[in-house]
Each structure stands twice: as C-alpha cells, then as structure tokens.
C-alpha cells in the first residue's frame, strides 16, 4: 500500500513540477507568437541563458539561488528591450514575418549556442545549484525536497499572476485584443507596436523565469536548450497559439502524461507517447485546442 502511495505521489509531484515549468516556457512562447507572429526558435537558448546566469551568480559569486533568479529575471527586461530595438522591430510589418522570424531567431539560436559552447561548455558538463531551500518535507511516505516545493509554488504563482494580468489589467487586455485581431485592436486605439514590444519583453521574461526555475529544480547541461524549445513549440501548437490557458492546460497534461506513462512503460515510450498524442490532437483539431 505504501509502495503504491509512494509511486502515486511521485507521479503527482513530477507531473505538477515538470508540467508547470513546461507551461511557463510555453506561455512565454505563445505570448510572443500570438501577438507578433514570432515563433522564437531561440527560446530554448533564452531559457538556457536564464539558467546559466543563475548558475554563474550562485557558484561564482556565492549568491543565494533565489536572489540570483530574481536578478536574472529582472535582467531579462533590458535584454529583451535591446533585442527588440536592435532587431525584432524591423520585421513587424513584413507580410509573412513568421517565416522571416524563424530564420532570424534560428540565427540568434546559433549565436547563443556558439557562445555557450565556447564558454560554459568548456568549463563543465553539468550545471548544478545548491538547494535553494535545503531539506525534505514528508508527504505521507513520499519525501519531497523543499526546493522543489518552492519551485513548484513559484511556477504556479507566476502562471496565476500571468493569468490575472491578461484578464484584468488594461495592458493585458490590450494584449489579448491583439492576439484576437490586430486590425480591430488598432481601430479601437490600441498601440499595436507598443503591444508588440511589450509582448516580446513579457514573453522573454516568462521564458527566463522558466529557465531559472528549471535550474533550481534540476541539474542541466547545454542539450536542454533544444529539448525545451521543441517541447514549448509542441505545447503551443496543441494548446493553440496565443492561448495562455492552452499552454497551462497542455503543459500540465504533457507533464502528467509523461509521469503516468513512466509508471507502466519505460521512459522512452513515455516521451514518445506525448509526441504521438500531440500529432493525434493536431489531426483532430488542427488549430489547437484552446483557440477561439
């Protein structure tokens, strides 16, 4: 009985924590794509940048992981603004800009991957942070590390905050109006370019937050960039581009599918199962589950 409970609780916590991080990154990606039509192929590298910077601050400067994470997420704002001003905004009016943006962001991804590989990649092959909150809390028979509990709460808190912001705040609502219909939003007096910039900054910030949380919960290496980029795209497509709700629901579904299937089959099958699930959903509802 205890064994069953142990495994059951491990499934719930794993599903929640991986799902929440997936959801966060996918939400960042979907905000940018929904507003600007910018499929950011460099989002995995942004995610990685967030994690690596936290790692540097913590291991190099002895900063506490939480403080480092907060600083890095704050630093993502000027980072995104510079990128927007220097590069992203030039393509706002290109008709098939999604493709142009895919090229540009692939170029960016290559640049960041190159930088990481010639710096961090030569220093070590694994990046591990000390526990942000050492110790373990017992949930019945299941020992749950407090750091992961912390990461989970922050991730869920951020998702909830994002949600409230998009529903209730003036800017958030303008953002959603742009998601739904650019022209109509412009006619109603929404500053579409301003919203584009805002969406890019917000999306980047959320992706960075995902990266820093991931770094707190797991050891990681440079291969995580591409895996995360692809998972985030997959969640966005299934959830429906531009839908933060879709990202959250599908992110959690992906996290739980992987965790549950892991119980019955080997982890490769588990990974495979959500890829197949994604294809099936796409065939049934090509525009994504949560599009209006």
């Amino acid at each position, binding site marked *: 009985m205890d064994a069953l409970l142990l495994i059951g609780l491990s499934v719930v916590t794993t599903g929640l924590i991986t799902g929440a991080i997936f959801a966060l990154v996918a939400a960042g990606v979907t905000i940018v794509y929904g507003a600007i039509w910018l*499929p950011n192929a460099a989002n995995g590298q942004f995610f990685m940048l967030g994690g690596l910077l936290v790692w540097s601050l913590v291991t190099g400067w002895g900063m506490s992981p939480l403080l480092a994470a907060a600083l890095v997420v704050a630093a993502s704002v000027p980072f995104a603004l510079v990128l927007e001003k220097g590069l992203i905004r030039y393509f706002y009016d290109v008709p098939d800009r999604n*493709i142009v943006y895919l090229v540009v962001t692939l170029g960016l991804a290559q640049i960041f991957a190159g930088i990481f590989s010639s710096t961090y990649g030569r220093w070590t092959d694994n990046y591990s942070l000390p526990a942000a909150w050492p110790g373990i809390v017992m949930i019945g028979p299941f020992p749950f590390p407090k750091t992961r509990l912390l990461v989970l709460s922050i991730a869920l808190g951020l998702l909830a905050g994002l949600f409230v912001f998009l529903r209730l705040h003036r800017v958030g609502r303008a953002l959603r109006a742009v998601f739904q219909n650019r022209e109509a939003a412009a006619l109603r007096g929404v500053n579409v370019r301003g919203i584009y910039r805002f969406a890019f900054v917000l999306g980047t910030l959320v992706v960075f937050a995902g990266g820093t949380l991931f770094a707190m919960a797991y050891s990681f290496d440079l291969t995580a960039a591409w895996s995360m980029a*692809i998972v985030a795209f997959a969640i966005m497509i299934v959830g429906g581009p531009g839908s933060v709700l879709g990202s959250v629901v599908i992110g959690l579904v992906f996290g739980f599918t992987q965790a549950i299937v892991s119980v019955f089959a080997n982890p490769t099958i588990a990974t495979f199962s959500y890829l197949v699930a994604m294809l099936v959903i796409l065939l049934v509802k090509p525009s994504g589950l949560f599009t209006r």
Partner: protein
Amino acid sequence: MTDRLRVPRVAGVVLLVALALALPVAVADRRFYAFIVGITFLHVLWTAGMNLLSGFTGLIPLMYAGLAGIGAYVTVNLVMSAGVSFWLAMPLGAVAAAVVGVVLGLPALRLRGFYFTLSSLVIQSALTLLFVYFPRFTQGDTGISQIPAPTVTLPGLGTAALTGVWFEETLAVAAMLAVLVVWRVTRSRWGAYLVAIREDDVLTEALGIDVTRFRVIAFFISSLLAGMGGAFYAHYVAFVSPRSFDVLTSLNIWLMVAFGGRGTIAGPIVGAVILAPIPYLLQDLYLYKDIIYGVLIVLVTVFLPAGVWGSLLPRLRARLGAAAPARVPGKEFV
C-alpha cells in the same frame, strides 16, 4: 521574361554545370577540399528537395533530415546486411523515405502552413528518438561506421569502388539532376498549381484543382530527394549516426534555402554553396564559427530579406536592362 535575359541565363547555367563538374577535378589532390566540395553538392541536392516544399508550396518540412535518415538507414542496411548493390538499394531507400514523407506529411493536409512547420519539428524529434531506440537497424547513437563506397561495374573494365574524384563527380551529377527535377516540376503546370496552393489553397480548391493530390506529389518528390541525399551521404562520409540526421540538420538545410532565396531555383544553390562549407573552412576559428554563422544569417535577413539570390536577382535583372515588373521578392522563378 524577355528574350534579352535568355542568353545570359543559358550561358550562366552552362557555366555553372561546367564549374560543378570541373571543381572536383581541380581540387582532386587536396582531399580535404574535395570532401568539402562533395558535402556541398549533397547540400545542393538536399536544398533542392526542401525548396520544392518550402519555397513552392509554403510547407516547411522540418522532419526533412529524419527522412534523409530513413533513406540512409534503409540503404545502408540493404547494402551491408543483405548485400544488395548500392545502385539498387539507394532508390529503394529513397522510395522508403518518400513513402514515410507522404505519411508524415498528412497532417499538412489539415494544418495551415505554419502550424505544420512547428509540428514537423516535433515529428523530427520523434524520428531521432526512434533512430536511437532501434539499434538493430541503426546501431543506436554509436552509429554505423565503415560503410563501403558504392562499386561500379564497367563492361570490359571490371568492378571498381567509386572513390575519390569519381564520387564527387557522381554527387555533382546527382545534385544537378535534383535541381533539374525541381526546375521541371515548378516549370510545369504542376508548379503553377503548387504556387497557387501556397498563395491560397481554398481558392485553388474552389477552382477545381485537387489540392490534396498535388501536395502529396510534392511531398513525395521532396522526400525522395531527402532520402536519396541521405543514402549518398552515408556512403560518402562512410559513417552515419542519429546525430547526422537530427533537428539541427533539418533546420540547417532549411536555413540554406531561406538564406539563398526561397522559391527560386538558384537561391537554395547559393545558400548551400555559401553555408555548407563554413563549418569546415573556419576550422581554426572553432570557438567563433557558430557565432559567425549565426551573425551571417541575421545580417542577411536584415539586409537581404528575400535571401541572397532572391534579393540580388531583381537588381541583376535591372542591370541587365530587363523590364522586369517589380514583384515581391522570393516569389518568382528564375
């Protein structure tokens, strides 16, 4: 198209063909450069196939490298385990890739362009997982080494392995054939249909054109070229592993198409010729070469938005005095 352009165009093509055939001979005794030339031809072949889909139908198949992998693994297994001749195994491998390509392209029949692109990215990662997971056919991520060079039997001369400059010449011919096929397809009525589908599939359907059929055909040809390239790659490099056919390879091939100019015949060739050799030529700058590669891509997108060739072509036309109408770059044929 005016007649004034025909002469330079024909001359250009003849020159290019001559150059392609002469290049391997010119670098024959510098095997390293010969190898780069060979790899570049392979990428010309691959970009031609990718271009047929991404440039002319607007569907970007990012599982392209996975399809090349299927072509490669089928061919290598037939040659090394079943003892089939490369020249029989290669077409079989290509057809296998084409069939898988058509099946995996099915979502495209329902998905609007860009969603298909993103989902093909996921299909690609599933294919990579499969390559690693079935080591019986792929030897997992250790890869298959010592893949033999194809042999050629000439009447009266006996059998010889296709090595050295002969292999590069073969690749040159294969690449040119691929470009020729894509050129023929796009120049035919099919090509016009494909572009019509890219521009507006609903309208095209309404005009009584079987959109599905043409998309399937485009997928078939494109994947066939992917598989063929994969088979040649395996036997040329003499080594394959799942990493040879992963998502980065797909993205790279597509980048070459976009970099050169989507939807033109020459653009992808230009893209492949510029980008494919970079990692090899910048050996001494290994710490910076990825960065240089990325910066190059960003710069070209900013300053030559329709790709190198796609942006230079209208200027070239203007200089040659042709009264070419101002069209949206990247959407015309050469």
